[in-house]
């Protein structure tokens, strides 16, 4: 089943065009990896999918689960099952992590006409997911991401994903700054969420993460366009030859 269809997507930030015609199709159950050098537009694509309003879409369309994603507000997209694991998770002083997560879950449940969960019902669910990510429960009583280590922040993102159970998860450089142990834990958490109804778009600069989260498809993004698409082996080839190799191959891939 086609879950996401991006057609000729152009997007600008502050009047500067970053995405210059992205085409991408993702089916339920698939994991797609988007790789590319710094500044190629990977994060912009991720933010546009999460409906960040400061990213202006100038052309193209995104059909998500049969709906026009660009017509949705960020919270509506989230309630429809879109989830972005942030490259830089945001610190929110004064709001406890547990309260934030329960508020998010209840907002989504309310959207689907389900009963809200009180703190007592929420606790066992939260504990189960904390275990999955090997996280200390103490982190839940602290302000969201405030004074969390880099690894704790990234795990916290995957924890949210595990609780909110999205249909489409976009992981924006979830591997950056993680040591190999933390990377493994995060990847295991992500893998546990792989299922036939859920698609994932894994944005990364390096292929190491893909040793743990094995993608079905790999796309190379250069200067706002997907210049090459292929299977798992493309990531390895990139690692070996570097992005310069795709840049020389750009024209052929872009218009294929």
């Amino acid at each position, binding site marked *: 089943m086609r879950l996401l269809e991006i057609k000729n997507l152009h997007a600008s930030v502050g009047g500067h065009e970053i995405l210059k015609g992205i085409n991408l199709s993702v089916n339920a159950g698939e994991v797609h990896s988007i790789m590319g050098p710094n500044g190629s537009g990977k994060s912009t694509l991720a933010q546009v999918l*999460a*409906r*960040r*309003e*400061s990213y202006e879409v100038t052309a193209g369309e995104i059909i998500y689960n049969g709906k026009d994603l660009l017509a949705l*507000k*960020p*919270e509506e*997209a*989230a*309630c429809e099952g879109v*989830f*972005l694991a*942030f490259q830089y*998770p*945001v*610190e*929110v*002083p*004064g*709001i406890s992590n547990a309260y*934030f*997560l329960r*508020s*998010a*879950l209840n*907002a*989504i449940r309310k*959207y689907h006409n389900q009963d809200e969960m009180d703190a007592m019902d929420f606790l066992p669910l939260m504990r189960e997911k904390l275990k999955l990510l090997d996280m200390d429960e103490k982190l839940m009583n602290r*302000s969201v991401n405030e004074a969390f280590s880099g690894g704790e922040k990234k795990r916290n993102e995957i924890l*949210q994903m595990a609780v*909110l159970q999205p249909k489409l998860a976009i992981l924006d450089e979830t591997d950056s700054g993680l040591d190999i142990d933390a990377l493994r834990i995060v990847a295991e958490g992500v893998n546990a969420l792989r299922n036939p109804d859920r698609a994932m778009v894994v944005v990364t600069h390096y292929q190491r993460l893909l040793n743990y989260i094995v993608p079905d498809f790999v796309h190379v993004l250069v200067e706002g366009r997907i210049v090459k698409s292929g299977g798992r082996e493309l990531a390895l080839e990139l690692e070996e030859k570097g992005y310069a190799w795709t840049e020389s191959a750009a024209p052929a891939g872009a218009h294929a």
Partner: protein
Amino acid sequence: MLESKTGINQVTTATQELNCYLEAFSGFEKSAVGNNLPWLRKLRANAFARFCEVGFPTSRTEDWRFTSVSAIAQTQFQLAPKTQRLPDVQALRSYGLTQSICRFVFVDGHFASALSSVGNLPKGVRVGSLADELALNGPALDAHLGHYLDTQRDVFSALNTAFLEDGTFIYIPRGTVVAEPIYLLFVSSEAGVPVMSHPRNLIVAEENSQATIVEDYVSHGTGIAFCNTATELVAGDHAVISHYMIEREHTQAFNISTLLLHQGRASNVASHSVLMGGGLVRNNVHPILAGEGAECLINGLFIGNGRQHLDNYMLVEHASPHCSSRQFYNGILDGHAHGVFHGRIIVHKDAQKTDAKQTNRNLLLSDDAQVDTKPQLEIYADDVKCTHGATIGQMDETALFYLRSRGIDESSARRMLLMAFAGECMERMRAGAARSHVEEIVNAYLSQIVAKSARFSEEVAPVKKSREAVG
């Protein structure tokens, strides 16, 4: 020629401004409770003379640089009479803290015994109306009343002292702990004409005593009212006192409040002020750390909207060694509201090892909201630690997007972020009934503000779009 003419005009205006006070005072002097007591007559007369001499402050007065009181000066107020139509108990219940046992209600500055209850206080604790205490000429009065408030420096304190008659008198004997908050509700009622009241509270907490006092100012009905309130709080050695000041009158109200804290050795006083209501509001907090090792927390939250003007003025006097003071004020300003934080710290010559800290953080929710923040340190000792910092910012759009990206709608996300910001102040209050009372009021008010601005943006959005279409 022109200049002198202007000069004459100003003099005439200033005299006219004082007219209503002269009239009010001549009547008041004759009939006020305690006018048979020579010390009290003198106290009032001297204070009134001082008020007439100085008049209302202008923007040239350093302490009033950011706040114009001309709206007060130009209104002819009458002393609020004792109303015959008291609000009923049911109506007052909506103001909260209903569970508090000791509850004193003042209507237009006059004690309303029918609406009040003393409850079951620990032995020796006295809570009563100041007017009753004046009638008795109790011994604590001569020893404390008017001894701390600086009527020379502050003209509103002088005005309050000139008209002092009613308010609360609280006496907590040595070593006594009052567990439940003492709740003082000041109601301004509907008078038909502009009225003024000058409630005066005297709180004497003896050595090693503990108590929580809540002053809550509300409006019941509409109409222009000027409430000029003053509280003298004497904390004896090792006393632990929390004081709350909540201003939530309607926007036609003028509210000037002064809290003077006189702290003994190793005493610990927390002043929490929450300004949400009132049109023109000024809250003065003036701790004098007189005894060695005294600690003081001055914690404030101000939330302005519309055309409200909320001024927070602090004068922290370190007069002894090893004292610490902490000032934390958070401001949230929307609409055309104007907030002021003016924090003055004076470290006297002998106050070595002073540890003073001052922080003011402000959130501006609209382009037209404004805040003036001014730290002022005067240090005459050489071994001290004084720091201050102020920030002014907008709502964190990244945090807002983060919350929304998890499914939380924009209004709720805004409300959560505002509550978190305001929550920093509430976190500093000791857990208990008083804090819960404040949390309830603040959370309800913030929800209201967010809902209002959401409605506003929905109304405005289509207009913007059509403009773009035309352009």
